[in-house]
Each structure stands twice: as structure tokens, then as C-alpha cells.
């Protein structure tokens, strides 16, 4: 009972603190402190309710148990991370996005291909492509190669659509100016159009970070060696070791945020000229 009351008291106290804080001018400290306080509140209430109500660990383990499992199985988590994120997701992401960008540059030269591929690409980008996972597992085996292949299939079309839009985003005035400079196709591409395409390209790259992780994890549900995040999640769920599952999900969340953060950071570097980055 004390746990429940303590959790609720903490909740009310933190909420009151947040209301007071958010009423003040939004300095950087306030903008960081408020969401962090909220996150801590969620963890404290979770811990208090699980302990206070005696929720069994096979339904919802408390955060401290998850942290303990995390610390206990660091070596397993690292092996899974290498297998799924570094080998499966990252290699697939690089191949898929890279080939989509090249394809976009190639088809951009032909009006006919662009008009044909764009609707098809838009259609394919909205499809549940994770469903191809069993097929790729059958073709490329249980190793990370099949996961990378699923990731390539998932990221290719969203990236292609964004890149084609980006290449088309230059203004007539800018293209005219390149023409008055007697710039060749390649010069126009390298000095004007690729730069103009970058905000769109990064939009695609950011969406694809999440897709890549999802693809790599879900593909492991269809068959994998005896390590990997998707494998670990599905087998540990079967053994009802939910603290390990939550630790694995924490790794997935950290990897996803880190991956997204890195892409967002390089976006800021590359598209420093874009209005949304000027302050």
C-alpha cells in the first residue's frame, strides 16, 4: 500500500512541479527538465504500482528489475545489437538508401520513367513490406544477409520517392542561372540539384532509420541464428523472462534514437543553409 501511495504522491508532486516549471519562460533548462521529470515520473509510478499491486514479473516487471536484467546480460545484449543493428539494419540501410539515391538520379533523366516509377513507388512505399521477410529468409538463409535484404526492400521506395521529389525541387530561376553559366548536366547536378535535394533526402533518411530497425527485428521472427534482438525477444517471451525482453526493447529504443539522432545531426551539418535551420 505504501508503494501505491508513494507513487501517487510522487506523481502529484512531479505534475505540480511541471505545471509550475512550464508556466515560467521556456529557457533551455526548462525545456529539458520538464520532459525528463515526466519520464522519471512514469518510471516511479510504474515501479510503485507494480510493487504495490504485486503484479507478477511475467506480466510486467518493475523498471529496477529491467535495469538489473540489463546490467546482468550486457554481453548477450551486445551480441544481439551487433547482429541485428550493426550487421542487419545498418548494412541494409546503407545498401537500400544508397541504391535508391542512385536510382533516383538515373530515372530523373527520363521524364517517362519518373512519371511511371513515382506512382508505383508511392504505392509500394505504403505497403506492408515487412511481409516479404519470410521470402528473404528462404532465399538468403538465417544469417544477417536476409535481414539486410528485408531492410533494403523496406527502405528503398520511401527513399526513392523522397529523392526524386528532392531532385525536382530546384526553382526554374536557379536552373536558368546554371544555363546562363553554360553548366553541363553533371555540373548542374553536383552544384545545384543535389544540394537542393538534401532536405528531401534527409527526410527520407530519417524515416528509414526506424523502418530499418523494424525490418531487421521483425525478419528475425521468421528465422535467425541463436542470437539477434528479434530472436531474443521472441524466445525470451516464450520463456516468460520479460525483464530480458524489456531490456532488449530498451536497447532497441536506444539504438533507434541514436541512429535517428546521428542522421538528424548530419542533416543539420549538411543543410545548414535551409530556412528551418537558420535562427
Amino acid at each position, binding site marked *: 500500500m505504501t508503494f501505491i501511495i508513494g507513487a501517487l504522491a510522487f506523481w502529484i508532486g512531479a*505534475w505540480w512541479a*511541471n*505545471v509550475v*516549471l*512550464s*508556466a515560467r519562460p*521556456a529557457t533551455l533548462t*526548462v*525545456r529539458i527538465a*520538464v*520532459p525528463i*521529470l*515526466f*519520464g522519471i515520473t512514469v518510471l516511479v509510478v510504474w515501479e510503485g504500482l507494480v510493487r504495490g499491486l504485486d503484479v507478477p514479473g*511475467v*506480466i*510486467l516487471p518493475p523498471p529496477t528489475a529491467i535495469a538489473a536484467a540489463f546490467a546482468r546480460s550486457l554481453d548477450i545484449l551486445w551480441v544481439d545489437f551487433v547482429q541485428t543493428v550493426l550487421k542487419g539494419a545498418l548494412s541494409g540501410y546503407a545498401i537500400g538508401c544508397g541504391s535508391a539515391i542512385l536510382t533516383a538520379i538515373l530515372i530523373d533523366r527520363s521524364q*517517362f*520513367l*519518373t*512519371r*511511371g*516509377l513515382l*506512382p*508505383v513507388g508511392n*504505392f509500394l512505399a*505504403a*505497403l*506492408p513490406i*515487412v*511481409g*516479404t521477410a*519470410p*521470402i528473404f*529468409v*528462404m*532465399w538468403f538463409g538465417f544469417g544477417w544477409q536476409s535481414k539486410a535484404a528485408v531492410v533494403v526492400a523496406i527502405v528503398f521506395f520511401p527513399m526513392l520517392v523522397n529523392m526524386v521529389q528532392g531532385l525536382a525541387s530546384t526553382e526554374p530561376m536557379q536552373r536558368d542561372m546554371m544555363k546562363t553559366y553554360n553548366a553541363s548536366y553533371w555540373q548542374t547536378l553536383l552544384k545545384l540539384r543535389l544540394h537542393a535535394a538534401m532536405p528531401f533526402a534527409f527526410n527520407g533518411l530519417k524515416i528509414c532509420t*526506424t523502418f530499418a530497425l*523494424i525490418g531487421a*527485428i*521483425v525478419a528475425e*521472427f*521468421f*528465422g535467425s541464428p541463436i542470437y539477434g*534482438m*528479434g530472436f531474443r*525477444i*521472441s524466445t525470451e*517471451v*516464450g520463456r*516468460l523472462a*520479460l525483464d530480458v*525482453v524489456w531490456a532488449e*526493447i530498451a536497447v*532497441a*529504443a536506444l539504438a*533507434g*534514437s541514436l541512429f*535517428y*539522432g546521428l542522421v538528424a545531426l548530419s542533416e543539420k551539418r549538411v543543410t545548414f543553409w535551409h530556412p528551418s535551420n537558420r535562427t
Partner: protein
Amino acid sequence: MAIGALMRSLLPVAAVVAAIISVWYALAVQMNSDWALDRAGQNGIELSFGALVKNTMSQDRPLLPAPHQVAVELWETTVEKKITSKRSLVHHGLITLSATVFGFAIGTALGILLAVGIIHSRAMNMSIMPWAIASQAVPILALAPMIIVVLYSIGVSGLLPKATISAYLSFFPVVVGMVSGFRSPDPMQFDLLKTYAANPWQAFWKLRVPASMPYLFTSLKVGIAASLVGAIVGELPTGAVAGLGARLLAGSYYGQTIQIWSALISAATLAALLVGSIGIAQRLTLRRMGMLR
């Protein structure tokens, strides 16, 4: 003129689709020929090229089924089978569809409610929004097997666990989209309502809600696609009982590639129908509201 415009957009699409199908056929011949040659070699038969191509198009468990094999399977399992049959794709599709739509409805409703809370409370906005945005970068789908098993162990099974995953996946896109939608009116428009002495309730219904409609439909499209993926993945850990995800898993267990491909194409059709119907609702609504020319 209309026909000319139609040809201009239809012809390239048709050409691309035709190219995809012919590449598919070529790949099918190439990938399935190993098995065909193996069998022929064991039986001491020399296959002519024509016989080889014919063989690769009609295997029972080809590495890559030819498009027409998938089409035949689709026809047999949708039109010719009774809907109540366990082998009918319509039956499985409806199971997946119900979980998708149910979860999508819950997720959207909760998402809109939270967005309303966020725009009216500064504290909520500052505490929740960063997490809602960050959650977009997190592979939430990884939670699916656990949600299914945990809900099953406390006695909830059937539609609800899958719908929970669908709801969860469609929730965050709707929150983020609707918050920007509710905030999209100009300060000038809010000022105008203030001069009319409108209260926040009236400002919400007469200004914020209509202004948010384009954002609503955009996030609904993202949400329903995510819901469908959620429902399909949610069907995997239930041990391949029913639904399109279960068809995929059963097909991959038993090497029934034609079954996998037909389940995949039904899932794709379902996605296209769902996104398309939201697109139609969007056009109708926005035209009615005068937001579309």
C-alpha cells in the same frame, strides 16, 4: 484532351508495371532452374530450354513463383473457396482487417484526445511532446510479441491483443499530426474569434477542428498503414492460427512459397484499399469544406 492526359500518366505506369512483371518472370526462370536441372539430372533427362522454362513456371514449391501461379492461387483461395473455409484468404483477410480497423479506431481516438489535451495544457505539451516525437524513432513493433503473450496470460485473447498493437502503432503519428493541425490556424484568426468574444470551446470547434482536417487525413493515412503492419506482425506469435500474418508464417514453416506470395499480395491489396479509402474520404471532406479546388 482528357484521354491524352490519361494516356500521359497511364502509359508510363503501365510500362513500369510491365517491366516489373517481366523481370519477375525472368527471375523466376533463373531462380527455379537449379532445382529443375537437379531433378532432371537425377532422372537422367536432358531438359531443352523450352521444357526448362515450362518446368520453372509450374513447380509446387518454387523458390520464386511465377506471377501467374500466384494469380491462380489468389483466384482459388478468394473466389472459389467459401469464405468460411480455413483456406480462404478472404476469411484470413477479414480477421486481419477487423483487428486493423478496431485498433486504428482506438489509437486514433486516443491520439486525438491526447492532442486536445496537449494544445490546451502547457505542462502536458512540454512533458509529453518530446516523448511522442522521440517515440517515432523507436521500433515500437518490437513490443508486439510481448503484448500478445502478456495479454494472453491474463486471459485476453483473440482480436484485442492484435488491436492493441495496431492502436499503439497508429497512436503516435496521430498525436504528432493533430497537435500541429490544431495549432495550424493563424494568430490573426484566433484574435478575430476573441473579438467575437468566443470562448475556448467555440474556438476549438469552429476554428481549430476545421483547420486540422488536412493534418488529420495525412496522419490517418500513416496511421492505418502502421496499424495493418501491426496487426500482421501481431498474428505471428499467436502460433499461426488465423489472419494474413499467420498465413505468412505457416507458409514460411512449410516452404509454401505460393501461399506466402498470395498472402503478401492480399496484404498489399488490403493496405492499398485502406489507404485509398482514407484518400477518398479526404477528398470528399476537403472538397465539401472548400479546402480543395
